[in-house]
Each structure stands twice: as structure tokens, then as C-alpha cells.
């Protein structure tokens, strides 16, 4: 596979190194002269000097035959535009963009620059896994398919604790698909009773979490 990477910062340089090790052909583009010279000592012909938002720089690097374009510069506007021309002008089938400021994620999405990966979000996701009292863990996010799966713990005193599954009222677009109890998991039936200490897996349309979490809050607790 031929991979074009824009931005030879820590992310770009290490990505290039890993992909080359896996046997892929890689060209890395870096616009800062000093950084380019540093990276060039290791990667030699696999790194080129230039502004990856300029079309001739992308063409010199062979964007026409790239199987994958990865934009990981420190500038969100640059990453958006590099991926936009890769996809729409050079008809590259696969792109990956880095989001530096998570607030800009909506603009990546608006302009169809997906997948867009944010380090902040990845770390937040890990924190959710590592800090169980948080109560809610995202297990799977498929925003393009309007689907996500979350894990919710059922504390003592939560409104949902003690209810039979067919008594639980969740918003349209959400469904309890599994219950984790005493180290095992099972698919519940209508008459299954949800017990304190359980964890519940819910499949839902993104954005419904807030309507659901209230039923999993311990008595007196909020949010």
C-alpha cells in the first residue's frame, strides 16, 4: 500500500516508521525546514520538504497513486484541506485526519473529513474505562451509522434496580442488549429482573445517553 502522510511531528514520524516496518511504501511531507532535515537523517528519500496544502507538493509526492492519505499536522484547517483535496480532487479512497482541537471535530464532520481522530477523545475514552465510578463506558461508537453501545453500572438505589426488563422505559432508539452479572454476561428476557451491581449494555442512537443515565443514578445522586 502507498501511504502519504502530511506532517512529520511526533505522530507523523512514528506512523511513517511503523508503516515502513510493516512493509508499506510511505512518503512523509514536512513544511518546517529544520524538522524536515532532522527526520531526513533517518527516513531519507521517504520524507519530502514542502507545504502539504499546496497541490504541486502533493502531486510531487505522488498523491495520484496514494491508497491512503493521513493528515496529522498540528493545524486543523490544514488537515481538513489536505484530506478534502485528497478525497475530492485526487479521488483517494481512504483518508485519516487528526483533530488537534476537539471542538473542531464538528467541522471535520461537516465537510465529510472522516475518520477524524482526536488524541483528547482517545484519552477521555481510556479514562472512562479506567475510572469505573464514572458509571458509563462507551464500548463502541459508529457515528456514521448513528449507533453506539454503552455500558452502564446499576448502583444500589438506582431507579432501574429491581425492575423487570419489560417494566423498564427507555427512550425510542435505545435497547438493553445484555446484562453483565457476577463475572458473566447474558441476553436478558422480558421477565429478567435488573439487580443492583449489574452492568447493562445498551445500544442507542448517539445523543440519548442523558435521557438514559438518570435511571442508573444512585438515589440522591445527580447526573
Amino acid at each position, binding site marked *: 500500500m502507498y501511504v502519504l502522510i502530511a506532517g512529520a511531528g511526533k505522530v507523523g514520524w512514528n506512523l511513517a516508521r511503523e508503516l515502513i516496518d510493516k512493509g508499506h511504501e510511505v512518503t512523509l511531507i514536512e513544511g518546517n525546514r529544520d524538522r524536515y532535515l532532522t527526520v531526513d537523517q533517518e527516513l531519507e528519500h521517504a520524507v519530502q520538504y514542502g507545504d502539504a496544502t499546496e*497541490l504541486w507538493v502533493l502531486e510531487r509526492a505522488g498523491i495520484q497513486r496514494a491508497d491512503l492519505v493521513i493528515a496529522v499536522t498540528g493545524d*486543523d484547517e490544514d488537515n481538513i484541506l489536505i484530506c478534502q*483535496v485528497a478525497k475530492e480532487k485526487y479521488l483517494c479512497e481512504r483518508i485519516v485526519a487528526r483533530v488537534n482541537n476537539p471542538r473542531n471535530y464538528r467541522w471535520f464532520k461537516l*465537510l465529510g473529513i472522516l475518520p477524524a481522530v482526536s488524541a483528547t477523545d482517545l484519552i477521555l475514552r481510556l479514562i472512562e474505562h479506567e475510572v469505573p465510578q464514572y458509571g458509563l463506558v462507551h464500548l463502541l461508537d459508529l457515528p456514521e451509522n448513528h449507533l453506539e453501545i454503552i455500558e452502564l453500572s446499576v448502583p444500589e438505589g438506582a431507579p432501574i434496580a429491581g425492575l423487570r426488563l419489560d417494566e423498564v422505559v427507555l427512550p425510542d432508539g435505545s435497547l438493553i442488549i445484555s446484562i453483565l452479572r457476577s463475572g458473566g454476561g447474558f441476553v436478558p428476557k422480558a421477565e429478567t429482573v435488573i439487580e443492583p451491581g449489574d452492568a447493562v449494555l445498551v445500544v442507542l442512537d448517539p445523543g440519548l445517553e442523558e435521557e438514559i443515565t438518570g435511571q442508573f443514578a444512585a438515589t440522591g445522586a445527580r447526573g
Partner: protein
Amino acid sequence: MFVLIIGAGRVGSAVAKWSLAEGNEVSVLDEDPLSLERLNKDQQSSWEDAGGQFTVGTALETDALDAAGIAQADVVIASTDGDNTNLVVAQIAQRQYDVKKVIVRVLDPRRAEWYAEQGLETVCPTASAIDMLQSAVQAG
């Protein structure tokens, strides 16, 4: 008309002053608070006293765009000193806020041409300068 100008350097601030003098409602968004001085310079009354609006913020911040009134804008001019910022904010104005007329300054001629084909109204000062220099040489 409500005109929103994003980026008040030499070009943006001159267009802003002209636009206000033409009797439009004009809002300027710039990341540098000092840009307000450029708008006040050589004017009888200050920019804000003359009815102009000024917001400090960067082009991709939703809060700044909202405060500058992008939802009401009839015209948006993207004239920061960065082509990439201009091209992104122009597309945001079109697609997120449905602004009818969006004009974007792009210094790089090839990208100005390609984005024009994609439906953006681009103005390329570099291409204009090349044309003018060639005509001047030809005229002897």
C-alpha cells in the same frame, strides 16, 4: 445587507470601512484586538460609534462566529492572512449557516481555481498581480 468580514488586515479592514460607508450593517471578526485600531484609523468617529461591530475571536470558534452574527449574514468575506483558514471558514459559512454569498480570498492560484470549480467564489490577488505585471510588461 449584513456583511460579516472575517480577518481585518489591510484588505479586510478597507473592505469593512467601504462597506459601512455604503450603508450596510458590518461586523468584523479578527483574532487580534489591535485590528480595531486599524478600523478606527483616519476615521472621523470610531468604528463602533459609526455603527460597526467588532468581535475578537478565531475563525473556527463557533462562539465567535455566533457572536459576530454569522447566522444573520447576507454576505461573508473570508479575508484572513491564511488561505487554509479562509477556505475552511468559507465552507462552514456555506454549509453550516447557509450564507447566500460567501467570498473567499485565496493567495494560491491553483487552489483558488479548483475551489472556484467546487462552487466557492474565490478572489485571488496573486493571479491579479500576475495579470497586471504581464500587461504592464506587454504595454512596454
